[in-house]
């Protein structure tokens, strides 16, 4: 291993890691918004909303994220959507992971015993109240861990935006592999940084999960 070279280039990787972190955080936020809306649509009483929700999940999960990103970034201008690479990355990845989060959130909600909703309705709560005060607080605890799995996948998924030239960790690694011909060294630096990001996130989610336990 060429340690000298690694010491020389690592500041660029740190900068790139910061971009990866920004991408991850923004994508998580957008993903949670899309996921909540998607789950609400899929559980709605209105048939049309259920169909829209199911179509969203099916199309997004049935095609590669890379293609979705390309449609948005390269195809967008043809239909009047002009985005820079970073914006396209956040929106493309956020809408993509949102479809997976839709299923996670929906899964947690339907996992709550039916008797809970029935009991709440019997006590005179409206459908909204029973969801808001009885079902969701319980479901929220159930979804922390599986959403953590989604977020873990999302962090690794941010590497895709290298293909539309966002200067994040993978793009930086690729560029330095090309200019230094030292693939293992570059992989090592970026790999360690990815693993630190994923490890810290994982610990955070485990902490949240522990705090949310009732017993």
């Amino acid at each position, binding site marked *: 291993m060429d340690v000298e070279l690694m010491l020389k280039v690592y500041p660029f990787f740190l900068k790139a890691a910061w971009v990866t972190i920004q991408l991850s955080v923004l994508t998580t936020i957008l993903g949670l918004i899309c996921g909540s809306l998607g789950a609400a649509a899929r559980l709605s009483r209105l048939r049309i909303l259920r169909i829209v929700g199911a179509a969203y999940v099916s199309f997004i999960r*049935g*095609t590669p*994220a890379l293609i979705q990103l390309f*449609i948005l970034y*390269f195809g967008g201008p*043809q239909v009047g959507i002009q985005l820079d690479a970073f914006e396209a990355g956040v929106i493309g990845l956020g809408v993509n992971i949102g479809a997976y989060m839709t299923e996670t959130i929906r899964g947690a909600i339907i996992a709550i015993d039916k008797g809970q909703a029935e009991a709440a309705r019997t006590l005179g709560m409206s459908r909204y109240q029973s969801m808001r005060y009885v079902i969701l607080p319980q479901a929220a605890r159930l979804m922390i861990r599986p959403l953590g799995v989604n977020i873990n996948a999302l962090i*690794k998924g941010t*590497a895709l935006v290298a293909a539309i030239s966002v200067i994040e960790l993978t793009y930086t690694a690729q560029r330095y592999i090309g200019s230094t011909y030292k*693939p293992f060294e570059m992989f090592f630096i970026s*790999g360690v940084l990815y693993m630190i990001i994923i490890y810290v996130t994982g610990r955070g989610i485990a902490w949240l999960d522990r705090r949310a336990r009732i017993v």
Partner: protein
Amino acid sequence: MGLDFSVIPKYLDVVMMGAVWTVAITVAAALLSFFGGIVFAVIALYAPKFVRLPFRAFEWLFMGTPLLLQLFLIYFGLVQIGIDLPAFVAGVIGLGLHFAVYNSELIQTAILAVDKGQMEAARTLGLSRGQALKKVVVPQAVRDVIPPIGNNMIALLKDSALVSVIGVSELTLSAQLAIGRTYRPFEFYVLAAVFYYIINLGMEAVLRRIERKVQAAR
């Protein structure tokens, strides 16, 4: 610029050829990841410590970094140590290894969940440890995790789009080729998405059949 889907028929055969390559690379990588996953699981659980520990580190590294980065490492790294593989082979190895690690995690859990009595009974009948693993324990374990392995294979199909960046002319790269000639990214990426969706549906159908067969064999 607007949309004009009438350019598609002229390049349809190029994109369809790409779809065929996508199916080929997916099937090859899926087989590698399935059998690789079994081998990895056995190594992770039963190999001597000096093999097991470095191997665990390798698994950890593969699960903690993006596939795209691994593809770059394999494609450029192998060249550096003097192995010049065609992009297709590098793509199959990269995808196959990546998903083999994920499959291995599933299979490890399943092996540990197989009743201990199975191993003991097999040993009592005179099978060696290796034979007992191969003929008794592993087949039962693998059968239990066919559905989640199937999910990994669906993910593999979609991630096969990534090998376009190392120059494998599969569906995504074929679409890019057509775009280079026509400057119509929206139309051709949507076309590629439609093809992926169809392949995905086909693959789900095949996986369901396999699952049913495995269930029936129990």
